[in-house]
């Protein structure tokens, strides 16, 4: 590892440095504002350094990490979404009593874990990144130790995540036993007789279990609704966006397009995708808790992403990247609104709390409407372009069954999104004046996300160009 290699790791080093600075900051002076400020500065520095190292890529740093355009794109998305979560946390936690500074420490650590994941090309860095992420998340999910739901969510996450990590490790061991190497390239070749498929295929299946757990796809989705519901809204946003983005980024790298097309792997993922799309949308139908609706809808959305993952072309990896950006922007805005409406006693999760929101707070409700329409994939939002992109890559790969399931289940999905929209616009007998004020940082963030949501929904060309430039897309 020479000096240039170290320089190439600058975004990671800055994140790691931020944790130390934040920690020392907390030790020196316990101030919510200062800690949040340090965290955001660290994220900003790390984000900017991505542009600085962009001219060094592609570059393999040790056998563990690969820095290429792909890694940098996902890294940018991860750091940006984590920064947005930090902004949301600031207003959200300021409403609550207690000490909030450690949350930022955990947030930066979890982000570091995510960043390692999208760069890793080796089981060692994979496991290291995943564990840094998981361990930080246990703390974040159960941050309100006084709330029963939060503790339940934290314990549930801890137990299931540890179990899935065990599966993952066992899978890695099997693959290593077969191929003798821990690099991802070892699983690339499934067809040739030189590898022992009796070890390799179970190995892949077990590692997919570990990844599928973190992605929350069926049948590894059981923790999702409880954790979304129990965790503080900004933490739910982090679980939904940043950590899942990292895992998708890893999954695309781990199973190369050729591997995905081998029949066994294709079948495995096709079943997971179809089950996720159906179960996610159907289970969300009867929920009256907005956070749980978002949880179940996330199961379905990652089913959609798997459709593009299975299409396995350059177009498809562009579709995955676009969809992740769209989903991140949309979900951050959604949890941002939940965070704004939450009180110090409980998060604003019950659907009834949203009744007639449009007539009380038209701007906030308009943003939420745009968010829901984006999740439903209605034109003029990023969600539509994302869904279009996925359908296009599916059609391009002639995966007709998958895209027809996608279409039919997303119509079911429309039903519960519309239910929330109707609630937003319905009459209230006596509108109570809202007490939650919107501070300027959250207002700025929500406004920015809404503008992105519509702007890239109407004119996606700049983002598509960026994706093509970094990942190599169609045409």
């Amino acid at each position: 590892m020479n000096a240039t290699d170290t320089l190439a790791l600058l975004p990671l080093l800055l994140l790691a440095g931020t944790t130390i600075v934040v920690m020392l900051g907390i030790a020196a002076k316990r101030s919510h504002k200062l800690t949040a400020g340090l965290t955001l500065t660290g994220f900003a520095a790390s984000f900017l350094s991505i542009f600085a190292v962009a001219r060094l890529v592609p570059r393999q740093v040790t056998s563990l990490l690969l820095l290429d355009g792909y890694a940098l794109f996902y890294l940018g998305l991860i750091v940006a979404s984590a920064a947005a979560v930090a902004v949301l946390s600031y207003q959200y936690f300021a409403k609550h009593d207690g000490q909030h500074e450690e949350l930022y420490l955990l947030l930066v650590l979890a982000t570091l874990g995510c960043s390692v994941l999208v760069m890793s090309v080796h089981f060692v860095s994979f496991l290291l990144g995943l564990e840094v992420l998981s361990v930080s998340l246990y703390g974040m999910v159960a941050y309100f130790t006084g709330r029963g739901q939060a503790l339940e969510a934290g314990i549930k996450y801890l137990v299931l995540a540890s179990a899935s990590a065990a599966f993952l490790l066992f899978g890695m061991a099997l693959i290593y036993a077969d191929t003798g190497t821990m690099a991802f390239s070892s699983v690339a070749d499934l067809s040739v007789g030189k590898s022992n498929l009796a070890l390799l295929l179970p190995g892949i299946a077990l590692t997919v279990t570990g990844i599928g757990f973190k992605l929350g796809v069926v049948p590894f989705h059981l923790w999702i609704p409880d954790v979304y519901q129990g965790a503080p809204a900004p933490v739910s946003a982090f679980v939904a966006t940043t950590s899942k983005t990292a895992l998708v980024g890893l999954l695309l790298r781990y199973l190369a397009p050729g591997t995905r097309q081998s029949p066994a792997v294709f079948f495995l993922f096709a079943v997971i995708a179809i089950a996720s799309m159906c179960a996610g949308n159907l289970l969300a139908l009867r929920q009256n808790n907005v956070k749980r609706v978002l949880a179940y809808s996330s199961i379905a959305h990652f089913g959609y992403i798997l459709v593009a993952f299975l299409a396995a072309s350059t177009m498809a990896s562009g579709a995955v990247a676009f969809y992740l950006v769209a989903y991140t922007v949309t979900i951050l805005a959604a949890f941002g609104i939940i965070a704004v409406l939450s009180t110090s006693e409980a998060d604003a999760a019950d659907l009834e709390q949203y009744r007639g929101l449009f007539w009380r707070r038209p701007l906030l409700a308009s943003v939420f409407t745009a968010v829901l329409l984006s999740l439903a994939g209605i034109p003029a939002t990023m969600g539509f372009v994302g869904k279009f992109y996925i359908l296009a890559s599916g059609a391009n790969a002639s995966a007709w069954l998958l895209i027809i399931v996608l279409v039919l289940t997303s119509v079911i999905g429309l039903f519960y999104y519309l239910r929330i929209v109707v609630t937003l616009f319905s009459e209230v007998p006596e509108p109570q004046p809202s007490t939650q004020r919107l501070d300027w940082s959250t207002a700025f963030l929500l406004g920015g996300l809404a503008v992105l949501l519509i702007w890239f929904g109407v004119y996606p060309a700049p983002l598509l160009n960026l994706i093509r430039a970094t990942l190599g897309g169609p045409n």
Partner: protein
Amino acid sequence: MILIFLIATLLLGGILAAISARWSTNLPRWISLAAIAVDLGLSARIWTGRSLSASKTWYDEVDWNWVPNFGIHFHLAVDGLSFLMLMLTFFIGIIAVLCSWTEIREKIGFFHFNLMWVLAGIVSVFLAMDLFLFYFAWELMLIPMYFLIVIWGHERRVYAGTKFFLFTQCSGLLMLIAILALYFIHHQTTGVYTFEYSELLGTTLSSSAELAIMLGFFIAFAVKLPVVPLHTWLPDAHTEAPTAGSVILAGLLLKTGGYGLLRFVIPLFPRAAHEFTPVALALAVFGIIYGAVMAFSQTDLKRLVAYTSVSHLGFVLLGIFSWNPLALQGAIMTMICHGLSTGALFVLVGGLQERIHTRDLNRMGGLWAVAPRLSASALFFSLASLGLPGLGDFVGEFLVLLGSYKVSVTLTVFATGGILASTFYALRMMQRAFFGPNTNSWRLPDLTPRELLMISAMILGLLWLGFYPQPVLNIFAPAMHNLQHEVQMPAATLGSQP
């Protein structure tokens, strides 16, 4: 550029109307009227500025790169067919604003915002010549319509609005898959990624692929038109929507289905459409009779009018799939006249409901004595609806039947039976609501000057179309010629169909 202004004026008008509601309740209404008036003026500019050379397909067009990575263009263009639809849109748009003048008293700004945006969506649908843009506009016009139904509708508005949205969205997504399939097949054969209508015409497709893709489009348009059995959203949506919503649904949204069949389904997939013709014709005739029978047995006046739409739009489907000049002219005439006559009936029913707060036929009766002008207008439009010669609907349906006679005598006979059935429901409606004894001793104000103005404009329109339809047919003729030119399917071969 004028085409962009057409859409932008409506979008901007909607935003201004929403903002202006802070200061005055009437301002949003006047702003909406002004925006539509500006659009009418712009359309006059298009008409006078059109190029008259026969080789040019379009009166005017705009073609911008939109998403070059996918070969998506922002391509708007207007020909005779689109122009007629635009005129209808603006006319019905004005009626929709006027008929909600006193009906809508709450959230006026947001109402007019939605009204303007749904009109903008419809205008974009009629202008889009890029299939991606078309789908974009197709879906976009749903959302404001959905809000119109669920916020200002009647008792079961949420159910009706959601059903409407789910039906259209599901069929729309099938169309999106079909569009994508066409896009990739076109790329495979030519190496060009494009959603451009004129380039996708004449894409070589295997016959099974062509049929599958054609069905994707057909179902989307059949839901909108509506074709029985995909019509079940329509009675609910029409009944529960506020008057302006029903007028726009019946007058315009259904027409987007007919327009889509005419513009896309048959020109893009002539062979598959040809194979599919017997099914489509049978569905059309079934719809005509089914709609009439269902209308006859309704007790909710608004639902009755809604079912007449199912019947009338059956003629449009019959005309389009007969695909000969007479039938096509008939289809376009039916689309326009149905917009006027059914729109007017919804205005009258809405006015009646505003006065007596019920739509139940059993509770009405004897209204002629207390509100003669309203009743007489209802009689006029019922007669139009049952196809009285001298009024526009007659011309349309007569031409359709003439055209379809060349294709299938049997089906034409049944379709004519549908006209007969329409006499029953129209007269029954008159009988129950307006004639007979006034058992409930209703006392209600007659039509106001504002309503009279709307109604007389629609009466004059129908009379003009009934006695002198030639200008409409002349505008449509070059466009029809082009559409038929795209399709190497002479009418004679269709004549061999059962």
